[in-house]
């Protein structure tokens, strides 16, 4: 069974034809994404190669501090990338770090304490990556929603302030929309899981020869943990960010 999982260098090279197809479409339609495509492919190859060796080492030595260090790096990178979507929102990195750390940390603690996973690098590191990347996307979308709505709905917010609303009351609709936007991909994915897509973890287990009826147990766990983590991450990011659209005099910036 394991031999079926090995992708030979030749097979990888042939799979590169798919990238060539993407490049050809890009050139024919003048999409202007040639550089992005090439950079994306090169980065993916380098990053995954490095991570492959690092993970091999971490799994081999199997120490708590190295596992936690790897989780910290994942969280830092997720927060850094989420912050890039925040535009001019002040303190977005600290907010993102808080959101990703809390959501990832609490979910990991929960999963380990109910023995859904074990505290070993082979399980902790991939699960952390899965949670942190989803929280990163959720917070990034929530930031984008806040930025858009504080511009588009400025007259409404101003009107609420003029009526004597506090900042939370003036921003309530925008807060709700931002959290919903952040959670939307996870909820959509939860609704269509198994019908449209066989997600990564389940596919990986099936690839590895695990009985699909057992693989779904893990996927259900992943669905639960992602729903919890993205809602927590969006909640923290939005509630820490919306007051930053106002100044000390409780005026819109």
């Amino acid at each position: 069974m394991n031999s079926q999982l090995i992708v030979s260098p030749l097979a990888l090279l042939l799979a590169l034809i798919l990238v060539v197809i993407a490049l050809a479409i890009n050139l024919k339609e003048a999409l202007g994404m040639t550089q992005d495509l090439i950079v994306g492919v090169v980065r993916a190859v380098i990053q995954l190669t490095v991570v492959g060796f690092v993970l091999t080492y971490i799994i081999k030595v199997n120490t708590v501090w190295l596992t936690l260090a790897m989780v910290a790096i994942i969280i830092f990178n997720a927060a850094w990338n989420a912050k890039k979507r925040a535009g001019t929102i002040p303190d977005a990195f600290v907010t993102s770090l808080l959101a990703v750390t809390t959501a990832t940390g609490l979910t990991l603690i929960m999963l380990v304490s109910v023995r859904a996973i074990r505290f070993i690098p082979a399980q902790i590191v991939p699960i952390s990556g899965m949670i942190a990347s989803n929280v990163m996307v959720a917070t990034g979308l929530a930031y984008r929603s806040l930025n858009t709505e504080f511009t588009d709905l400025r007259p409404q917010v101003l009107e609420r302030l003029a009526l004597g609303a506090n900042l939370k009351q003036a921003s309530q609709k925008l807060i709700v929309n931002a959290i919903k936007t952040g959670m939307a991909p996870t909820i959509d994915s939860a609704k269509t899981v198994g019908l449209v897509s066989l997600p990564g973890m389940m596919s990986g287990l099936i690839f590895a020869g695990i009985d699909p009826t057992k693989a779904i147990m893990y996927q259900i766990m992943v669905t639960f943990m992602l729903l919890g983590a993205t809602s927590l991450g969006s909640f923290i990011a939005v509630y820490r960010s919306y007051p930053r659209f106002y100044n000390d005099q409780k005026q819109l910036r």
Partner: protein
Amino acid sequence: MNAFELHHMTFAPTKTAILNDINLDIPWGIDLTIAGHSGSGKSTLLRLLATLLTPTSGTILYNGKPQSDYDPILYRREVSYCAQQPALFGATVADDLRFPFTIRNTEMPREQAEAALESVDLAKTMLDAPTQNLSGGERQRVALLRHLFFPPKVLLLDEVTTGLDPDTKAVIHNLLDRQNKKGITLVSVTHDESELHMAKNLMTLVDGQFEEVTLA
């Protein structure tokens, strides 16, 4: 004592001042109209009085104390700013009228809302109407009512009758007269010359300066 006292008040967010070195007293209980062309700084003045903006220099005293001495939320419940093109943010008229009650953690009595609608010549059945179907005049009346359920001490009115038909203008003027008689100070701005003959106290604002003052 005056409601507002402006001392050398300037508002210059860029190098060009929108309002420059304004000195002005606005007494309690007055019905004041400030006229001026578009861009003369009228709306900015109202937003400064409402603490939605802060002067770049000089001071605005409200009831003898600097605006900064007040909690902005409580201040804005006393000094209420009505925009020229009010944003209605509820799905229905009832949702919009409920907002002043919601922010004070109280329930809106339906009868009070229906009576308020009738007081501005709107049918009480309009309470459940979707706000997106309202005409400009209906929107403006609903928006004004939101400011009156918990009567403020000062109403700042930013061209609230501009673009409305004469009948609707008359209804709104009537409503505002009643508020003034109850003791609410009114400060209105307009660039509509047809409104000026109705002004009880008139000032003109030109290029950030009061040029002519005809206070009663």
